[in-house]
């Protein structure tokens, strides 16, 4: 295995640096992930929050290379897992994927093959990454089902996916992801397709697994799920991280205007002032500026506004010009690229 | 009507609008008118004209059936197309951009037109017993096979004389001196009849059954699908032979027997698609708006199932054409139809010759048959691509 550097216990488990993934579409190349950097520590729960099109799913699929390439292409960036460079060698990647990194997706009925029993699929996952005898594999499969809370696991192991309810099927999918005893579980909207009472139990299961020392990278659009699970939050917009921080701080004082807009939408409802144009976000500077009430001309420059500490907290940062000292406060960008004097815009805070 | 004001939905006075389904639509009117014309022609033929209706056309039951089908196809197929010219133009452009498809459709169109018009206008291929077994252009045969040689006679060794094929008879003649080109075109007619009959009667029947079974479900579904299962077990040719004992060789009989027993798979397909799409949002909305099953199927379900339906229908055409050719080959079809199948059979056991000597008699129609089947399959696949909603608008 090619090592990216000496691995120490206090090094992050997963380290992502300047990841870029482009996707070819009818309308040209979309920069789905445009310079994303973050880290996940051992045993930590990190939530990636964003709306559709923010790049959150593509980011996580790019980490283990499961994003379909073509039409996508990971054009740049470093991904390092426990010191191993995942972008270097396909063999290294395949040894890790499904083994030390597990994946769970949104719809369990899609993730499970309807023509094989749950046991067969579990055993397949177990034997894929280890030389295990049939009997031992089956025992481990039953253990895994127990671990995720399936009642009467010994009997249910021979049932087919359609014989499980949505919540139970998702547990089975989690069991399959756990087959290789992973250090990191990447879960993409695992509770979106289930009822709220079922979601609560799945959240408890994930907490349980976290308690065992597993790390979790959870993608969601639901701030409540973030509140219930995350240690740290990463907010994505337009393929970039716009805010990062410990969950308590981000929730108490959301720094980036997009994050603020997200929280506001939980309180009431109002028409969006500048409805996002059909799919066309700017490809430089701050991507949120067409919809941002605080946009200034400085928002157009660079690849992305630099990160500034929110309220002095060093681990809570927002990529927003608003926090720059000495910013030009006399003019403001309106949604169409024109410039208006500040007097016409009210800024709270 | 509002004059200078913009029409707004809340100003519509719904009590004024008659929501009764219109009885007289353009399609229905045309269909009924067409049927009346046909009925008139039938009466005329039966009582007055007797043998020949127009020029050399001796109208038989199969002709009436196909004409009826044609009336249906035109009124329910062509009229809506004329209404939606923009979509038709787009489809046309899309077809043009696919050379293979264009070629296949052109081939079918040419043979279709020729096969319909020429035998009708010119009657059966003329007999010229004096010019039997003439070779195609470029081929030389023993001049002794036939009393005359249309092409040039070439002297060989001793008293051996050869007859060369002439460009004027490019495909040669058969054992009765009938031009192979004429036989080719004449043989296209049963093939066209197969396609028209299938398109006009069998495909709509199968679709209607599939839609009814898919939407209504319950006992109707069980009944229909059980019938389809039974249908698949009965060999059509067997049924044809039984009918043949009573009515003799008849293309109509063939189409009815084979047709009645071949619509099952298409019905199943349609039913399966209907079941899948029944719960799609726009279908549910259309039903909630009060659309009848037929309306919802026609407008919302069927246009979205072309991916599976179109290739299946064209496959059905191909299969039935082959079936007709097969039956004709066995000798159980009407000789006057000059089906390719019977010509092939003729070529394989010619009068006083060995088959390989007059190979063109069986080869020419065989090639035509194969080409037609290939063209149909290519057309089916090509049209599927053209109509595919994701195929690049």
């Amino acid at each position, binding site marked *: 295995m090619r090592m990216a550097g000496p691995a120490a216990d206090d090094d992050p488990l997963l380290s992502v640096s300047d990841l870029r993934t482009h996707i070819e579409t009818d309308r040209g190349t979309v920069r789905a992930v445009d310079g994303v950097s973050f880290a996940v520590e051992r045993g930590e729960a990190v939530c990636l929050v964003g709306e559709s099109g923010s790049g959150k799913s593509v980011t996580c699929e790019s980490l283990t290379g499961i994003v379909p390439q073509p039409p996508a292409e990971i054009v740049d960036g470093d991904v390092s897992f426990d010191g191993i460079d995942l972008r270097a060698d396909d063999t290294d990647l395949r040894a890790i994927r499904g083994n030390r990194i597990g994946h769970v997706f949104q719809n369990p009925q899609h993730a499970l093959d309807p023509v094989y029993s749950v046991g067969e699929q579990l055993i397949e996952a177990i034997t894929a990454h280890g030389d295990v005898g049939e009997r031992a594999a089956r025992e481990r499969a039953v253990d895994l089902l127990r671990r995720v809370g399936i009642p009467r696991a*010994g009997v249910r192991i021979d049932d087919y996916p359609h014989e499980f309810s949505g919540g139970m099927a998702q547990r089975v999918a989690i069991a399959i992801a756990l087959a290789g005893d992973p250090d990191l579980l990447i879960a993409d909207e695992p509770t979106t397709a289930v009822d709220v009472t079922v979601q609560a139990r799945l*959240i408890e299961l994930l907490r349980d697994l976290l308690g065992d020392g597993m790390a979790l990278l959870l993608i969601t659009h639901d701030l409540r799920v973030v509140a219930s699970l995350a240690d740290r939050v990463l907010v994505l917009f337009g393929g970039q991280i716009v805010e990062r921080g410990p969950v308590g701080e981000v929730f108490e004082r959301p720094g980036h205007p997009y994050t603020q807009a997200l929280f506001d939408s939980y309180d009431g409802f109002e028409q969006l002032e500048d*409805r996002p144009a059909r799919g066309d976000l700017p490809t430089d500077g701050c991507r949120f500026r067409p919809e941002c009430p605080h946009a200034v001309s400085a928002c157009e420059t660079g690849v992305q506004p630099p990160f500034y500490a929110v309220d002095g907290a060093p681990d809570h940062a927002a990529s927003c010009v608003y926090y720059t000292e000495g910013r030009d406060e006399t003019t403001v960008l309106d949604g169409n690229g024109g410039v208006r004097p500040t007097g016409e815009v009210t800024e709270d805070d | 009507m509002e004059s*200078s004001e913009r029409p707004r939905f809340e100003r519509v006075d719904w009590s004024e609008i008659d929501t009764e389904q219109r009885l007289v639509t353009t399609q229905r009117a045309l269909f009924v008118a067409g049927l009346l014309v046909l009925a008139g022609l039938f009466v005329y033929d039966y009582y007055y004209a007797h043998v020949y209706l127009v020029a050399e056309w001796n109208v038989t039951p199969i002709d009436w059936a196909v004409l009826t089908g044609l009336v249906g196809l035109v009124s329910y197929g062509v009229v809506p197309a004329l209404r939606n010219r923009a979509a038709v133009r787009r489809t046309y452009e899309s077809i043009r951009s696919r050379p293979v498809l264009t070629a296949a459709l052109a081939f079918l169109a040419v043979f279709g037109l020729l096969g319909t018009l020429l035998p009708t206008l010119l009657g059966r291929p003329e007999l010229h017993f004096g010019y039997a077994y003439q070779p195609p252009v470029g081929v030389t045969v023993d001049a002794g096979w036939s009393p005359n040689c249309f092409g040039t006679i070439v002297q060989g060794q001793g008293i051996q004389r050869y007859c060369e094929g002439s460009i004027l008879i490019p495909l040669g003649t058969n054992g009765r001196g009938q031009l192979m080109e004429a036989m080719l075109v004449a043989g296209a007619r049963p093939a066209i009849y197969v396609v028209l009959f299938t398109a006009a009667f069998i495909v709509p029947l199968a679709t209607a059954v599939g839609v009814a079974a898919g939407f209504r479900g319950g006992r109707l579904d069980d009944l229909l699908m059980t019938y389809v299962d039974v249908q698949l077990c009965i060999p059509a040719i067997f049924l044809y032979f039984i009918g043949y004992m009573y009515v003799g060789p008849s293309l109509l009989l063939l189409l009815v027997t084979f047709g009645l027993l071949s619509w099952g798979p298409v019905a199943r397909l349609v039913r399966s698609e209907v079941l899948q799409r029944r719960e799609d949002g726009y279908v549910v909305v259309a039903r909630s708006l009060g659309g009848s099953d037929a309306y919802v199927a026609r407008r919302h379900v069927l246009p979205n199932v072309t991916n599976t339906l179109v290739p299946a229908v064209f496959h059905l055409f191909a299969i039935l054409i082959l079936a007709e050719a097969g039956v004709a080959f066995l000798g159980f079809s009407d000789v006057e139809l000059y089906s390719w199948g019977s010509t092939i059979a003729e070529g394989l056991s010619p009068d006083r010759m060995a088959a390989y000597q007059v190979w063109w008699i069986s080869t020419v129609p065989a090639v035509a048959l194969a080409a037609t089947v290939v063209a149909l399959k290519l057309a089916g696949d090509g049209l599927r691509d053209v109509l595919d909603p994701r195929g690049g608008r």
Partner: protein
Amino acid sequence: MTEPTGGDHDRSALGERTVDRRGDPLLSVTDLETHYPITEGWLRREVGRVRAVDGVSVDVYEGETLGLVGESGSGKTTLAHSLLGLEAPTAGTIRFDGDRVGELTGAAKRAFRRRVQLIVQDPNDAFNPRLQVGTAVAEPLALNGMDDAERRQAIVEDVLERVGLAADDTGRYPHEFSDGEKQRLAIARALVVDPDLLVADEPTSALDARVQSDILALLDEVRRAFDVSILCISHDIDVVRRFCDRVAVMYLGEIVERGPVDAVLERPAHPYTKVLLDSVPSLDPSDRDLPAPLTDTIPDPADPPSGCRFHTRCPAVIGPEDADLSTDQWERLAALRFTVQVGELPARIDGDGTTSETVVRETFDLPDDLADERIESGVDDAVAALADGDLDRARERLAAVLPSVCEQQVPATVEIDGRPVQCHRADPEFDAAPRPWNR
């Protein structure tokens, strides 16, 4: 006369929303039942029924938003479909504007179909991918008899502008629009025949948070400007809280609680409502408590539990009368009793006879030394049976010594906080320690 385009001018149209009822309800449902037969064999012999909607009575008044909340299996979608005529109810009556819907024929029936419109959940399959959206939005007009194509086109263009899209959009195809825009198109299509009632089936579930907010705002504006009632089906409490005036909570085909949104969500009277609300994670990261119902298994709608349907999952289920049990002890025993009853054994207990009694007692945290000997012996028997893997015997013994009125009798309707609720706890006739509900 040219009017400004866009929705702005309509904001001032009808002013404030009035909550007070204006006379008779627009839609009145009484004891509605929609059952599906389960058949066996070729003759389709009925062997059971799925009781999707099982005795629902609810009213929707003019100009109000009624939320219908429930999880899968609650019957909320079947209820909506029954109202629209997409499913045939098997019993009960639906009255729209005073007329019995089931008895309408001809023109009156078509008028009803026009006045009640549907907005489906998934914007991605709400439109026929083959048709231009202008044609799709005009379809209700065409189906209701408006033959003049130009008139239809003009109305559609007008409606599109008023929901925030452009007149030009009529020539586009559905895939050219974003999810939020498609939902706007769906609202336009529903509006175009000037309905009185909109049935919105999860109108925002497939949308991102900010787009949700946008669409809810549009729906609210539509409601105010055109005096349309909205029946909003949702599994999302946040949507109901922000958007609806009143809410009805459904469980297994019945409405268990109804009332003004603030009252129901702040002071839930029925234990299921409370369970539902407790299951929604808090937005406060420091509050991660997620109280669980007694069991997770949702009962089969074809075979609902006896008595109160919620009793197998109810954290407030009432214990045996005159039993010498503390609340705490009963809670744990109830967990044992009903978990065993529905067969939802915890993972550690396999039910195949390999578990020890100690493990069973530990897993359920069973109290030792109960005052009531009969109950104690019954529990001991059940624990032994569980350890042996004899689920049936365990069920029997527990059912015998731990009966509950909640499984024996259907609760009577009682008024709490001015709202009707069916719960034995609320019923003054029953001697069960009342519990404080306030969140």
